[in-house]
């Protein structure tokens, strides 16, 4: 077995734009399931609607591409009816936290044994660049032409507060760390939530002075603050520099979980 076996080769080429970060995340995930020796016929990928949610269509397992925002309740049905399946959800920031926000907090509360990977491009990609609950303050989108004036969600804090066992954030720049986080999350009983900031040059970068892929990736790298470093700054009473976001393992605990394999 190799990573290639996990791809539906007959579905390529994919629909992602040139420079999109989603492919990196799919590859990281498939390398993780392959390295764990998971079986294709015991693994189910589930998604909602959006660019990121197209991922299961390129993966060779049984897969469920559902309705916008509802990946988690569909996945909950699969996992509760047959706990022996490994269930992995791909979702976008809009899919997960706008239309699917209620399902997100309840899946975390149940701490159901699935792994949720959110490709957060901070925008609605599929529908052409409208603002999402994760669009940063001031950022331009087709529905925030004068700059986003609402506060964004911190998805990881939300998942932690709602009860998920494992919560981590990385970016498409941090491929190695991301692969480790996913590998860990897949094995962890309970809900594992991995947020990955990904570049969307077409719909986010273009409107926000990040014209090329390289400058988007550099911006993510430069603004990522390791959790350990953040904790040190806090302990020393020093300020967190403006515009930074925290990356790393943010929550790792062993609360009782639902739907765990017998």
């Amino acid at each position, binding site marked *: 077995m190799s990573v290639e076996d996990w791809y539906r080769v007959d579905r390529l080429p994919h629909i992602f734009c040139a420079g999109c970060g989603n492919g990196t995340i799919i590859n990281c995930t498939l390398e993780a399931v392959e390295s764990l020796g998971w079986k294709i016929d015991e693994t189910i990928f589930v998604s909602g609607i959006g660019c990121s949610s197209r991922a299961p269509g390129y993966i060779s*397992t049984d897969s469920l591409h559902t309705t916008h925002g509802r990946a988690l309740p569909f996945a909950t049905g699969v996992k509760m009816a047959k706990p022996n399946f490994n269930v992995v959800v791909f979702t976008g920031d809009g899919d997960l936290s706008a239309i699917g926000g209620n399902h997100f907090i309840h899946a975390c509360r149940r701490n159901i044994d699935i792994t949720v990977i959110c490709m957060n491009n901070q925008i609605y990609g599929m529908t052409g660049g409208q603002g999402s609950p994760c669009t940063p303050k001031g950022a331009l989108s087709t529905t925030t032409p004068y700059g986003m004036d609402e506060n964004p969600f911190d998805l990881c804090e939300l998942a932690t507060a709602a009860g998920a066992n494992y919560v981590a954030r990385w970016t498409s720049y941090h491929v190695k760390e991301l692969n480790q986080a996913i590998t860990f999350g897949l094995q962890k009983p309970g809900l594992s939530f991995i947020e990955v900031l990904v570049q969307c040059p077409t719909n986010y970068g273009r409107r926000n002075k990040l014209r090329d892929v390289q400058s988007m990736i550099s911006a993510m790298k430069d603004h990522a603050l390791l959790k350990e470093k953040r904790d040190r700054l806090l302990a020393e009473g020093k300020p967190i520099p403006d515009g930074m976001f925290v990356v790393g393992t943010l929550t790792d605990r062993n609360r009782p979980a639902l739907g765990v394999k017998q």
Partner: protein
Amino acid sequence: MQGNDACAEGAIAAGCRFFAGYPITPSSEVAEQMARKLPKVGGTFIQMEDEIASMAAIIGGAWTGVRSMTATSGPGFSLMMENIGYAAFTETPCVIINIQRGGPSTGQPTMAAQGDMLQARFGSHGDYSVIALAPSTVQELFDLTVKGFNLADRFRVPAFLMSDEIIGHLRERVEFPDEVECIPPKPIREGMLPFEPEDDLVPGFTPFGKGHRVHVTGLTHNEKGYPASTDPDLHEKLVMRLVEKVERARHEIADYDIVNPDAEIVFISYGAPTRAVRQAFLDAPEKSYGHLNLRIVWPFPEDLLKKFKNARVFLVPEMNLGQIAREIQRHVDQPVIPIPRLGGELHIPAYLLKCAEEQE
């Protein structure tokens, strides 16, 4: 036994082993009973965060090859609509119990109605077809729940039990058969694609975990299951097949009672109003009106109407403003007179007789 409990018993007897739902009057006893019974037979009950999630969860459950069901009433039924369309389009066998109450909106939580009959048929966007059953006794709530699972599996559609508060909360004697017939969906045949129809227009089922590696999507898809949403001919062919697979079986699966086929004045009813018609007939043995009681309303068995060769007029008592009367009128030249009753109470038999006498 109460109707809603009989429904849950029917589901368990039919082999339903996954239930996801959200409490709503007057259907909650179905969920409560499933919560009690399922763990004892190795099944799983889960209370979801809303009805959108409930419908999603049973579709997920169904794709694992487990018979799956939810139960709700008006407001919850409305919330389920998007995922009901998903189930129809992805050919997911599942059962939805709707213990109807007075609407629109929150309406009359504790009173009966039949106001969701067209919603059951047309409520989600786009064209598709489904199966809807209508019990008029507690025994039928048991029997038709079993039948609903078999039909859902056979045609790979969402099947609706369109009951109402009257039957759901009625207490009547129920006889449980020693064994009920459970017919699983036909498996896919060697060499066939997951969404490639057989002669009956229904593809063989490919539940998860059996090596089919099926991709299930609500996008327009080809027979492999892969998205192909910009091919006009493919889309038309797929939608036509999904409608046709159910519609062309409408006479074969029709389930009904006929009284006095030679009558000139004929009642047509389904669900609770059937009880009022039967009582009216008992009250006036000298009259020989006709009666068609439908246990399956969708697909609508239009040819049955022709069995009433001498019919001059059809009277249709419904607990809505004439939803199925409108369907009947599409198929006959004779006048179809709706006898609507809103407010939650059943038609008074004497009133039905008066309506019929006016036509004599």
